[in-house]
């Protein structure tokens, strides 16, 4: 149990990378990139977790209650925004690429090589 979250992180990262390498459709490749990134959320939050602690919100609990690390949560939030931004940009590229190449197979999106 102690290391299960981290094993899951490695697993998500591996399947995501596998997806990127084998994808034959750009939009699917972008989704696999999202999966790769999701491994970082799990890692961040897993690293900052404290057994038996509550969420870091002190609205209705005493100030000295033990809470999990708020910093990793802030980092994960930033990470989510980055994900949204990069994905939106990649999708815009994909739309234009489809107009120019007539396909979204990464193996055929090849204008310059060598």
């Amino acid at each position, binding site marked *: *149990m*102690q*290391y*299960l*979250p*981290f*094993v899951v*992180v*490695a697993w998500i*990262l*591996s399947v995501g*990378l*596998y997806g990127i*390498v*084998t994808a034959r459709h750009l939009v699917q490749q972008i989704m696999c990139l999202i999966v790769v990134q999701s491994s970082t959320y799990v890692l961040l939050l*897993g*690293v*900052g*977790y*404290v*057994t*038996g602690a509550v*969420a*870091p*919100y*002190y*609205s209705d609990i005493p*100030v*000295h209650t033990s*809470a*999990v*690390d*708020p*910093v*990793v*949560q*802030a*980092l994960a*939030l*930033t990470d*989510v*925004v*980055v994900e*949204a*931004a*990069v994905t*939106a*940009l990649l*999708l*815009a*590229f994909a*739309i*234009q690429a489809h*107009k*120019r190449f007539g396909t979204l197979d990464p193996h055929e999106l090849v204008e310059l090589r060598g």
Partner: protein
Amino acid sequence: MTPALRRGMFFAGLAGFVAFYLWGLAGLPGFGRYPGPYGFIINRIAVGQTNATGVVSAVNFEYRGFDTVGEEFILFAAAAGVATVLRHLRGEQEGGRDEASPEASVHATSDAIKLSSLLFVGPAVLMGWFLASHAQTSPAGGFQGGVLLATAFALIYLSGEFVTFRRLSPGTAVDAAGAVGAAGFAAIGLTAVILGFPYLYNFLPLGTKPGAVSSSGTIALISFFVGIEVGAAFILIIAELVEQKLLVSGRGAR
């Protein structure tokens, strides 16, 4: 690279990399045993220092506020990038806007979907607003609120009212809103500089009681601007994609 070679190389590499990665992860203190000190210190001091009971928001907008400035501008740059890449190019005509009514393009929308989408617009806007203005007390904030606001606009589109959608979100206004949101955050930081404090210093009165809506000084204000910028950026992105789907025809320059 042949597919077989690629697969072989990938799996060989992946096996090595994952073994290596797991070896590193095994050096962590174990799940649930976060050693501190950063988070624990913040948890101890945040409420007293900022009067915000949502410590994550305090970290996002105060202790690590500059990260969030960068984050907002990542989203801003991405929206500008989407608009750049999807701008109307020479040789691409807009078909459909005038000849056929835009509704015709989404004729598949059934009345049930239309009605239910429209019914959800109000609550979505309300929720977005609520989330954006309660960063200091609850697990919400400008970001989540902004996305929800944008979703409300997406619902309008889903209901088939694309013309309404465009009327509510004309390009320049959304551009400007996004820019104002992003700049507002950076400018609040700069105001502190002008007042003689370090950048992003929380110079507003913190309020008297932790957790009140008007508490926490600049945190609530920043969260509000973040909400505007995120909402505008997402609306811009959605609008660009929708426009691509509906209006632009032609094969482009080549």
